[in-house]
């Protein structure tokens, strides 16, 4: 602090971050953010130098998803800021609390197309929960405090704070104001109405074929335990969205599994036959519903959701309960009757038929390697306890199907935006958030190459994550669509990759290769024992497809099944 008690905007920035509980930021320097970086040297907040700003945004995102705290990334103006965009949009669609700090050209140059000037508040307007352009040093602290408050309250989301270089350099008296942030137009909380709880309880008690939907909101609101109690009291089975996986234990007898496009066939069928859906913290995404006109026609719908704008958006519901899902479940739990719904659960089990069996054991036992083998063995070896971060594509769906998550915040994946390149950087953020966790990255050969440069960040930080590259030589998910819907014409999906083992070695890290199922256990054991980041190149079956599948826009119960016959076996339980 200078003699007159004033602090520079840059110093204030780090002070506020520290006071907001930030212990780590992910970033990349440049001209317009240099004052902030200079002041950083005197700050307690740790900085991780990324290799691309997209990585910084995904790291902040992964940090937030793993910890439940606000993730923070930092970038310079212009190209630094625009490189964040994909990461911000990813966080927006999955409601992740994040604060992005960007440098901006000095305020007198704004609007002049100055060097590295981009209107980043304009660019990010539709992909942030809110954003700020800060041009005066006095506004840095209050606007940052608002940013953290907005990011973490209500339905969380990313907030961007763009700070001009002159505001970082100027000085002002700094007094920390820790009174609650007040924003007159911002109403993040909604009290649930007792009469709605009563109506819901009556509907639930009266239902013969009810299903609970576990969405991301269960994890975000920390309602897993409540959900479990609710399920055990009411005997109602649970289906999960992709982002809801882990919100309810996968190995629980009343867990059905994932719903939607690559959900279990019997789960989708059960939804179509249900007489009541109790949707908890989810938004009826098109990947979950299939064709709306035929979706869950027999079911009354109770929609418990924090964001009123999600009500009746895709699916018309009979009873919306707007509020925190944990609070709603807490109110519902004493209001519902204890019931046995074994008949309904048995009926669903009956729907499993031959589709029930995961086809691992039925895959040709030629020694060849299928991605399902990798997921299944990894699940077994890590006892289902690893923190798994997946990228986007076939491997993401296989992971969701074969790695059974029993705990919340143990699966991190880009659901809403489906961002390739997400996994490695998000895993780095997650590992910094939870250093004691065993972190596995499951990534395709395509997605890995989008952000593989962050291996270098792992090496520089001495950070250990385990990277399982599911290398099928294709942009597999797109290839699958081409096979199913475009006459097998593989336009721009065959993919040649570098030697991933050598790539790891080039970073001074360990690289391993697995080409047969028998080698999985050994490679995984080696990776787990190694102190630093390890890359395993799993050379899997090239033209395998994810089954079952609801084609985009098709009826939810109209699923494409694996063409090969499947025989019953309990070996994957």
């Amino acid at each position, binding site marked *: 602090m200078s003699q007159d008690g004033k602090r520079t905007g840059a110093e204030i920035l780090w002070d506020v971050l520290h006071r907001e509980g930030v212990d780590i930021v992910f970033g990349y320097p440049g001209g317009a953010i240099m004052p902030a970086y200079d002041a950083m040297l005197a700050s307690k907040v740790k900085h991780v130098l990324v290799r691309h700003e997209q990585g910084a945004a995904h790291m902040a995102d992964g940090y937030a998803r793993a910890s439940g705290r606000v993730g923070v990334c930092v970038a310079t103006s212009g190209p630094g800021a625009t490189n964040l965009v994909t990461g911000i949009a990813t966080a927006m669609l999955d409601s992740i609390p994040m604060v992005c700090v960007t440098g901006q050209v000095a305020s007198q140059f704004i609007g002049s197309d100055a060097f590295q000037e981009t209107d980043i508040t304009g660019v990010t307007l539709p992909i942030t929960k809110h954003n700020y352009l800060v041009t005066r040093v006095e506004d840095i602290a209050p606007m940052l405090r608002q940013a953290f408050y907005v990011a973490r309250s209500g339905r969380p989301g990313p907030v961007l704070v763009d700070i001009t270089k002159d505001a970082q350099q100027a000085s002002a008296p700094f007094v920390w104001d820790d009174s609650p942030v007040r924003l007159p137009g911002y109403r993040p909380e909604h009290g649930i109405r007792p009469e709605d709880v009563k109506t819901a309880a009556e509907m639930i008690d009266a239902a013969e074929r009810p299903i609970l939907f576990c969405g991301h909101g269960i994890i975000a609101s920390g309602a897993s335990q409540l959900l479990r109690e609710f399920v055990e009291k009411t005997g109602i089975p649970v289906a999960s969205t992709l982002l809801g996986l882990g919100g309810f234990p996968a190995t629980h007898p009343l867990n059905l599994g994932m719903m939607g496009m690559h959900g279990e066939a019997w789960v989708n069928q059960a939804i179509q036959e249900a007489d009541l859906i109790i949707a908890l913290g989810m938004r009826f995404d098109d990947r979950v519903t299939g064709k709306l006109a035929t979706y869950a026609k027999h079911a009354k719908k109770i929609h418990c959701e924090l964001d009123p*704008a999600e009500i*009746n958006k895709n699916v018309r519901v009979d009873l919306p309960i707007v509020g925190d899902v944990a609070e709603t479940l807490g109110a519902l739990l004493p209001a519902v009757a204890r019931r046995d719904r074994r008949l309904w659960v048995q009926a669903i089990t009956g729907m499993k038929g031959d589709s029930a069996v995961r086809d691992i054991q039925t895959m040709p036992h030629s020694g060849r390697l299928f991605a399902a083998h990798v997921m299944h063995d990894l699940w077994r070896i890590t006892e289902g306890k690893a923190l798994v971060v997946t990228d986007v594509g076939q491997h993401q769906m296989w992971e969701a199907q074969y790695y059974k998550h029993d705990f919340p915040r143990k699966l991190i994946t880009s659901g809403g935006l489906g961002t390739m390149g997400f996994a490695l950087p998000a895993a780095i953020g997650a590992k910094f958030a939870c250093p004691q966790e065993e972190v596995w990255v499951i990534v395709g050969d395509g997605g890995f190459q989008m952000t593989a440069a962050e291996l270098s960040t792992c090496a520089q930080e001495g950070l250990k994550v385990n990277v399982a590259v599911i290398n099928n030589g294709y942009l597999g998910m797109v290839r699958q669509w081409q096979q199913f819907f475009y006459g097998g014409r593989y336009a721009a999906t065959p993919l040649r990759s570098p030697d991933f083992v050598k790539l790891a070695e080039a970073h001074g890290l360990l690289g391993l290769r697995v080409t047969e199922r028998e080698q999985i256990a050994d490679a995984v054991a080696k990776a787990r024992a190694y102190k630093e980041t390890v890359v395993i190149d799993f050379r899997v079956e090239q033209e395998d497809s994810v089954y079952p599948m609801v084609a985009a826009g098709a009826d939810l119960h109209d699923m494409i099944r694996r063409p090969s016959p499947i025989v019953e076996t309990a070996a994957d339980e």
Partner: protein
Amino acid sequence: MSKATLRTFIAYVEDLPGVLNRVTSLFRRRNYNIVSLTVGRTERPGVSRMTVVLEADEDNARRIEANLYKLVNVLFVEDTTTTATMVRELALVKVRADPSNRGEVMRLCDVFRARVVDVGPEALVAEITGAGDKIDGLVDVLRPFGILEMVRTGAVAMVRSSEVTESGIPRSSTPPSATTPPTSPTTPPGVIKAA
């Protein structure tokens, strides 16, 4: 789905740079078509008021309201479609009128209670205030004479004084500079039970 109709929303927003852009960007992004939008100051410093007319069915209307509330700078939203509301718009119409038919044009203006505010040798300018359909009516009858130029402000709306207790910004939640805590309405904004 219920039928789409023209709906009028009043939104009170913080008078800050970029807020208008946030609101219009929301409508664009959510694919709502704005028929008209006006914005101006209110009796309260720091608070602007928007009148937005757009086509929407009941479900969409509730979601528009809810989405508006998600904007941090939006203070209060009112869908006036079913309340007793006065809607006014102002138009200036420059119509061809020479000495031979000027009298006729002026008589027609008179019927619509439009004021002739400027007269030239070849044209005159009529000013009309009223609901949108009244203005449409005048425009229709003037069109055969040749409309040279027209400008309309777009609708502004105000709930009638008989409903004064139910409209306007709730006194407890604004203005932005005030130290009152944010209110938590017992009824979440923008949500209605399905019929």
